[in-house]
């Protein structure tokens, strides 16, 4: 069974978003996504300052099996990327919702998280 924390928002493309409440949010991929990908070997992330539209590709996650695009769940500007993933991308497998975070975004619209799935709807999607 995949772990779907109740306090996060989810994109259909299997990214999660955690609003901080100050107009910023953290983004990563879900437990379901990391489990489907298998051993993650490389994570390619954008530069700080990159402006992303909702649904825009922001990077690539590679596993032994395949390389997959990562999509920004909402519009925003990249204000941080996880520096640990360069050397230890397997953190995404081990800790998808905390240590395996990928981006921090300054949201273009602080209300945009509301357009995403809640945990119940995402749980149904991957059910």
């Amino acid at each position, binding site marked *: 069974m995949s772990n779907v924390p109740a306090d996060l928002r989810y994109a259909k493309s299997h990214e999660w978003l955690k609003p901080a409440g100050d107009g910023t949010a953290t983004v990563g991929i879900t437990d379901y996504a990391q489990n489907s990908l*298998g*051993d993650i*070997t*490389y994570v*390619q992330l954008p530069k700080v300052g990159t402006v992303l539209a909702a649904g825009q590709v922001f990077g*690539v996650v*590679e596993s*032994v*099996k395949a*390389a997959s695009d990562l999509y920004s769940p909402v519009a925003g500007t990249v204000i941080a990327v996880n520096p640990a993933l360069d050397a230890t*991308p*397997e953190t995404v*497998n081990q800790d998808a919702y905390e240590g395996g975070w990928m981006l921090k975004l300054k949201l273009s619209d602080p209300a945009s998280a509301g357009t995403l799935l809640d945990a119940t709807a995402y749980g149904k999607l991957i059910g």
Partner: protein
Amino acid sequence: MSDLKRTPLRDFHAAHGARLVDFAGWEMPVQYRSILEEHKAVRRAAGLFDVSHMGEVDVKGPEALRFLNHLVTNDVAKLFPGRVLYSPMCYPNGGVVDDLLVYMRAPKDYFLCINAGNIDKDVAWIHEQAKGYDVTISDRSADYALLAIQGPAAVAIVQSLTGAKLDRIGYYHFAEGTVAGVQCIISRTGYTGEDGFELYHPAGDAVALAEAVVKAGSAHGLELTGLGARDSLRLEAGYPLYGHEITADISPLTAGLGWTVKLDKGADFIGRAALLAEKAGGAASKVVFFKTGDRRIVRADTPVLGADGVPVGRVLSGTLSPILNEAIGSALVTTASAAAPLAVDIRGTLINLQLVKPPFVELKKSST
């Protein structure tokens, strides 16, 4: 996946948390917990692989030796009872039908191990070539299960389950005996570059044998290991995989397997004339192995670029070496370009290929 073929261990794998995938029409475990961790377990201690999908063929009869030396490129006449030989089996044009192991059990009594995805093709091919020879060919693939125990702890684990004297079985030799009470062909062979054994045994005994190996192996750090780790282990060891480094279009000479092509063995084997011509004229292309110093995996079919950015070949296999922590792989490139700088374009980044003579890591396999 109900239309897939299953080994006798399918439910054993599922019960141990395997991720089961379609491999060459078989429902097989690609991994149990992590391909990278399973790979490291084999290099560090031991792994248990179910490779029961592999095919087995009996070749018996007065002309078994003469027939096999016509069928395959290596020299079967060098075998004696208890000895194993690796060989390609070629088409007349030098392309490869399959690569296989030849076991000599007794005079006029040989046993072949062939790739799972090639069983139907191989058996038809072998029957066709056997016309006019006094031999009997029997496809025994459904009768046998095959477990591979591989890694530095493999000998201790298997020895704890058998009265056979394993230190008397050298690399690429075999004996027949019981392991955990199951009658086995105990073969000191493998596809990981580590020391270890492959145990051919009756399909009905597979679950009992696998459970005995797991029980005996737990104190030695043995882990269940899937086909994902098997592939990265074989690539790290520099072993060819049919359909990648050797194919109907890539001859054993092109693949760097010249040591398995015995042009002067005194038998006019299938493909000999073409391979002789290839050797005399020089092959147009060759298989090379590379590492990159980068973690981005260079996947099969990625174009290989020469010094001026022009494509000079393509990647055949690629993975991340869990031991080197960098991408490794093989490629087919034009012979003329093989000495020049080579690169691949991964999502807009040019990555240089550093050519390596495999194995990529120091191997400790038995050399006796």
